[in-house]
């Protein structure tokens, strides 16, 4: 979901990145590149081979949808099934996508060979041209190439990072931790009001953790709430790391959370809105997303906990009537969908929570706590919950 919002990425920044990456050889690992190249080559070779043998060329693409997704109850993450779909050249509806897939494949291979990385938008421009003898463009808009890139990722079982493509970065972090980002040491205690921007590629080859004293990670939904916590020096008083994902957290943020959780062994708590959207963000952080189920292994945090806001908070915190936002039809259907997800199915407290929200008929944002007091959320609400250990799992 995060990928599509990627918009203009100036060439300047990319150029800078390239320069530094080649100098320090951080972002690009030669061995992994070799493997990725072989995979792309294998795809092209199979197409060429079957074509020359007068067989109709095709590519098998694992399906990225709910139908081909399983919840692994043991690992408590979403995994991709084994179902694939054939993409054929000699099929009027698929011919164009087939061609695009090979074009993106070629683009990625060129990128790897040049040891450079590009944004999703850059990748779109890289494969964009007018087909010879026609007025048709290879891609009409970026969303087309983004989708194809995801197809390519699952087809060759490689990650976007391995293909040297990254999304626009989103999400910020402060707290009692020092990281090394492409050789630069970054002390997240000294990030001022802006915080450290979490890069879109957070692989160990780029980011290493140097020193961490934090006890836990508090992930909040939006920048506004994050700023509140940062200004109140919450991370200092409670000895934690404070992250924010601007709504649905992008891959970089999720990867970062996953790595900190796994490598540093600290728990993750989420402070999200009380609405189906917030619930789904929690679900993505915890189990992985449906669209990127193939990456759950590297991103999901099954032990993440949900602090709030919860439906009961309206009465518990004695909030005013003004904070209520009526549920619309879409919210209701979405909430029911979420309730039926297998990973929520056996969690009674969650079912109860969603049911209460539906019964109330309204949703609430984290910001609604401001009506109590400007710093109510950072000084009362979260500390109380943490002290009581009152989470939804």
């Amino acid at each position, binding site marked *: 979901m995060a990928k599509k919002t990627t918009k203009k990425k100036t060439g300047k920044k990319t150029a800078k990145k390239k320069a530094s990456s080649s100098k320090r050889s951080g972002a690009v690992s030669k061995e992994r590149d070799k493997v990725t190249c072989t995979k*792309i*080559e294998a*795809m*092209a*070779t199979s*197409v*060429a081979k079957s*074509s*020359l043998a*007068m067989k*109709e*060329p095709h590519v098998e693409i694992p399906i990225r949808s709910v139908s081909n997704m399983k919840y692994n109850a043991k690992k408590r993450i979403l995994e991709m099934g084994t179902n694939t779909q054939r993409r054929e*050249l*000699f099929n*009027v509806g698929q*011919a*164009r996508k*087939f*061609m695009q897939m*090979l*074009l993106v*494949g*070629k683009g990625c*291979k*060129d990128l790897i060979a040049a040891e450079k990385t590009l944004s999703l938008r850059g990748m779109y421009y890289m494969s964009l041209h007018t*087909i*010879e*003898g*026609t007025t*048709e463009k*290879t891609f009409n808009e970026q969303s087309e190439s983004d989708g194809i890139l995801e197809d390519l990722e699952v087809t060759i079982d490689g990650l976007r990072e391995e293909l040297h493509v990254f999304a626009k970065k989103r999400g910020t972090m402060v707290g009692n931790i020092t990281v090394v980002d492409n050789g630069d040491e970054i002390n997240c205690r000294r990030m001022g009001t802006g915080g450290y921007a979490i890069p879109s590629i957070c692989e160990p080859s780029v980011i290493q953790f140097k020193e961490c004293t934090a006890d836990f990670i508090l992930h909040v939904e939006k920048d506004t709430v994050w700023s509140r916590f940062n200004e109140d020096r919450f991370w200092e008083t409670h000895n934690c790391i404070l992250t924010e994902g601007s709504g649905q957290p992008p891959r970089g943020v999720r990867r970062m959370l996953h790595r900190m959780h796994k490598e540093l062994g600290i728990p993750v708590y989420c402070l999200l809105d009380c609405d189906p959207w917030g619930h789904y963000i929690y679900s993505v952080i915890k189990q992985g997303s449906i669209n990127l189920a193939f990456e759950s292994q590297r991103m999901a945090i099954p032990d993440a906990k949900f602090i709030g806001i919860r439906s009961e908070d309206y009465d518990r915190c004695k909030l005013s009537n003004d904070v209520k936002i009526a549920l619309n039809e879409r919210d209701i259907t979405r909430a029911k969908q979420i309730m039926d997800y297998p990973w929520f199915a056996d969690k009674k407290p969650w079912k109860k929570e969603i049911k209460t929200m539906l019964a109330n008929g309204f949703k609430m944002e984290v910001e609604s706590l401001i009506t109590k007091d400007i710093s109510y959320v950072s000084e009362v609400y979260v500390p109380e919950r943490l002290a009581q250990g009152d989470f939804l799992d």
Partner: protein
Amino acid sequence: MDHSRIRDHESRISLPTSMTTAIARKKTTRSKSTSKRTGATAESMAAKQREISVSEFFAKNRHLLGFDNPRKALLTAVKEAVDNALDACEEAGILPDIHVKLLQKDESRFKLTVRDNGPGIVRAQIESIFGKLLYGSKFHRMKMSRGQQGIGISAAGMYGLMTTGKPVHIISKTSRRKPAHDVVLKIDTSKNRAEVVKEKEDPKSDGLFPGGTGTQVIIELEGRYQKGRQSIDEYLEQTAIANPHAEVTWVGPTNETVVFPRAVDELPDEAKEIKPHPKGIELGTLIQMLERTESKSLSAFLQGEFSRVGQRKASDLAKVADKLSSKTITPRTRVSQLGHAEAECLYKAIQEASIMAPPTDCLVPIGSRALLAGLLKEVQAEFFAAATRPPAVYRGNPFQMEVAIGFGGNLPGDESSRILRFANRVPLLYQQSACSSFKAVVETSWKNYGLAQPRNGLPVGPLIVLVHMASVWVPFTSESKEAIADYDEIRKEMKLALQECGRKLGTYLRRRKQMRKQSERRGIFERYIGEIATSCHAISGTDPKKLYAALLKQAAKKTKEADQKLDLDGKVVAGKQLEDDEDVIILTDRQSGTGDEDGDGDGDLFGNAIPAKKKRRTKKKAKKTKKKSTRSRS
């Protein structure tokens, strides 16, 4: 109309006589009721009552003959002259060669010259033909011809005389050896007779008739010349379509010459004359026939005056009539002894009896091939189809319907389709919506054939529909012969013929769409193959040329397979038959891409023609209402 068909040879003024008596009677009753007020007596009224001649009657009611307004008058004059010329040529077995010239003398005055290469007119007949209303060779016969009543050309002359005071000028040459007659005629409306103003034998005019014979008529008349719909140009164009054996040369007031060339070098078969069918007459007509006949016995009368009545049928009819009648009626009964009551019994007997349908060899249709030839030379379409129905009968009159359609090409795609109506090869230009053919076209469901059609409207699209009715007696709605009367039998035949053509069009359109889809398909594959070959080369180093060739071969194979699949479905098979169909002509070089007429956009991959289409439709409506309003005005 029908009842006026059979009439005594001498009593060609019988129509006005009956009319005058009717008028006289009316007047008398009125005079009685109003006598108190005006003080007029029956005697003083009687002094004012006198006979009205046909000519006078029509002079005052010229709209009945199609001279309602200056523009229409001009067209009617041309029409009558050309129809007569064509009829004369065909009857004499001469391929018609007709010259029409219109000279504008001032704003509203025109000099019309129509010349043919027909057999000419013998001197003695000239006055009667051009100077007398209701004089002609066609009225008394049951024979297919353009003219019917014999009022056309003389009415045109009369109109000219009335509006400009100029007499009709006729030059006729009947033989190569004889010099041409040059006659100037003036019609005396009160006497229904022509007066010769000037007369001479003029060998100088022989140059007008290179073929040795022919007739030229010059009429000066008031009128208004305008191009476009319902114009002389349109009339001549349509005449050329329906008469592909004729060559028409037209010189308009702007002095430009248009030649409608001959497309068929064969004259149509001569139409046979038939006697009326018993089922087609009314009681009054029967009584008149009984009074007039030269036959002595009833049997002889029935056999002699009607078609499809033999000795046996005659005696059967007499037997049934005898049962109904108080008097004895036998086949040998004298006709003169049959009174009104007996005639009525006879009439009833005829209605009850089953009598064989009238002979149909009296009909000469234009023929599918000739129709197509005519349409082909005047209409820029890509697809042509024609259908000729077998003869049928309405009210005892045999008739035959023919339909031809043209589609696509340069025809305008966003308007209601055009209907060309013909009756015995004569174009009908006025009162389209009153015509049976219009109703038949509207009632045909063109949507089934892939055309858009608004409710109760004409189909919309690049379509032209030609409807021709051939009959010994075409039932017009009025004397000016503008619309075919709406008989169920006629409309049914029209619809059947329209459907036959429509089915062929539907097959063609479906196939054209399929073919477009196939080529689009092939196009899609071929478009991407190049990209794939270069990409594969860049990734894995495969020889791009080899790969390209292999993929191209597969693409061709793939689309070919699809074609074969269609074969099994039977669609393409039907298409092949279309090519073998004698009544269909397809001009692939006129195929235009714009004729995508049907609304479903399932096959379009890149086009988004649907919103544009909606726009078009609203435009159409606007145009249509405009057209309607002009029509009603005229």
